């Protein structure tokens, strides 16, 4: 009985093995051709190379702000007045739409005013990516219901600490990695 079986049926394991290896090689080959086609669209080396910039902020008086460009995006640097600081501090976390600090310089933390600012002793400074967390328009400074920033595109209101208070934007304005490298200069990135 068993002898007859081996006579009529070829050894299945060998053929299956060939099918599977051919199929696998084909799939891997296709994938390794498709990946370059997809990956070529990612930011290229020259775009990634624009990693950091340095900005002199010594001429920015309280109440003034400048916008600089970093990685093609605007960055707001604002020297806040005492009144603006006061307003931002008096907001309780419970009132906020987004309670997270969104500060790349901190591991995480609440969106308190100190966590949003340049830190102890430099609370008046705020440095943020000036692109609305809704769909990326640039909010206008000293505007909106909270006297901070107002995004004209779809009506998002940010307060003086750049926290989202009203409108479709989901998150507080992002704070990039930055540091004061001396009394007058900031390094972003």
């Amino acid at each position, binding site marked *: 009985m068993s002898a007859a079986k081996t006579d009529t049926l070829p050894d299945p394991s060998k053929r299956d093995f060939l099918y599977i290896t051919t199929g696998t090689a084909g799939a891997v080959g296709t994938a390794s051709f498709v990946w370059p086609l*997809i990956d070529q*669209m*990612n*930011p*290229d080396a020259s*775009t990634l190379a624009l990693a950091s910039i340095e900005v002199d902020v010594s001429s920015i008086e309280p109440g003034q702000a400048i*916008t600089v*460009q970093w*990685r*093609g*995006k*605007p960055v707001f640097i604002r020297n806040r007045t005492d009144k603006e600081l006061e307003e931002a501090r008096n907001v309780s976390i419970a009132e906020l*739409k987004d309670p997270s600090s969104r500060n790349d310089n901190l591991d995480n933390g609440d969106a308190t005013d100190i966590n949003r600012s340049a830190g102890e002793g430099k609370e008046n400074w705020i440095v943020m990516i000036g*692109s609305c*967390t*809704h*769909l*990326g*328009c*640039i*909010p*206008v400074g000293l505007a909106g219901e909270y006297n901070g920033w107002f*995004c*004209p*595109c*779809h*009506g998002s209101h940010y307060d003086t600490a750049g926290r989202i208070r*009203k*409108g*479709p*934007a*989901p998150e507080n304005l992002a704070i990039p990695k930055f540091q004061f490298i001396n009394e007058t200069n900031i390094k972003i990135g």
Partner: protein
Amino acid sequence: MSGGHSKYVPVNGVMKWMDERLPLPRLVYDSFVAYPVPRNLNNWYTFGAILSIFMVLQLITGIVLAMHYVSSTDMAFNSIESIMRDVNFGWLLRRMHANGASFFFLAVYIHIFRGMYYGSYKAPREVLWILGVFIFIIMMATSFMGYVLPWGQMSYWAATVITGLFSAIPIIGVPIQEWLLGGFAVGDPTLNRFFSLHYLLPFMLVGLVILHVWALHVVGQTNPTGVEVKDLKKETVPFTPYATMKDLFALALFFILFAYFVFYLPDYLGHPDNYIRANPLKTPAHIVPEWYFLPYYAILRAFDFNIGIPFTDIVLLDSKLAGVIAMFGSLIVLLFLPWLDFAKTRSGNYRPLFRQFFWIFALVCIGLGYLGSRPAEGGYVTAAQILTTAYFAHFLIILPLLSILEKPKPVPPSIADAILAKNKAA
């Protein structure tokens, strides 16, 4: 294209020789000459032909514009100005292309509403309808990318806002956005790939249109009675000359309107800010898309609140993602229309309630379009929320309910009977 009963007879030996090798003339003859169309089609049925012509027009003007256009952020804006001032007839070609896109959309909207009124999406035309929705979506992608090419302020900020939609997707959203842009913000890589795709997509559109027409010729056209053709001889006429002439006449009227815009109101449908060169550091005070995107834009902006579990802080969908889902959802829902409206009666002419809701729906769409053009403030947002609800309710609640509850008027037994009854009354 219907297999079997071809009426084509080659006129001479050359055509016979060809017919035995590649029967392309036979295909064209059977599809556009002998093809039987219901004899009671009205003028709303001419927009399919108008659309085909406008697609060809966009291809022709686009290909010649591409001979003068430069897709780099330094040069794009100036190359458009040089097309307008220096290139022979450049002003005409560009205005035809820019206004042509608007008229293409005007025609497609009429065509879609025609289909909705006469129940054209119902069996056996579901695939035909779905192909149409795909065509519509590819058209939108094409004209969005085309609008970025002149590199004006609206171009730049439209590109920013629309690619920003993808950043709403949790976790993978931002990498997807950067992949689409080729950078951290809209720039040279973005402009170049948009140009490449703006060249490619119209040809994919042509492919889809061929499938659309093929599907149409398999199942045949509907007609205002919604009753299928029963007697080819009594109820249909050959496509040429009857439909060809009727379509050409409608096309001529549509072209007059088009020409009026091209020559007398060339910038009426555009936005003046797009004549300001793109500035990545300044958003225009009031961003609006082209008119044909306004209803979707209103839906996107209607969500200024997070969707969560009531009385808790748990957020299921933040406002941004909710807006994006609703905007894409408003298109996706069209794909399911053949199954959401399952009433047996096809044509709106015999469905009194459906007909009222159809016109309410049309007004809702126009209202959304108006709201999309207004700033996203106060009462406008509330109104957009109400109309967005009405938009989705039409598809998801009203149409299924009407399919069950509505008592339609009696449908004529055949097209021939409907025509005879009409002639008697007149």
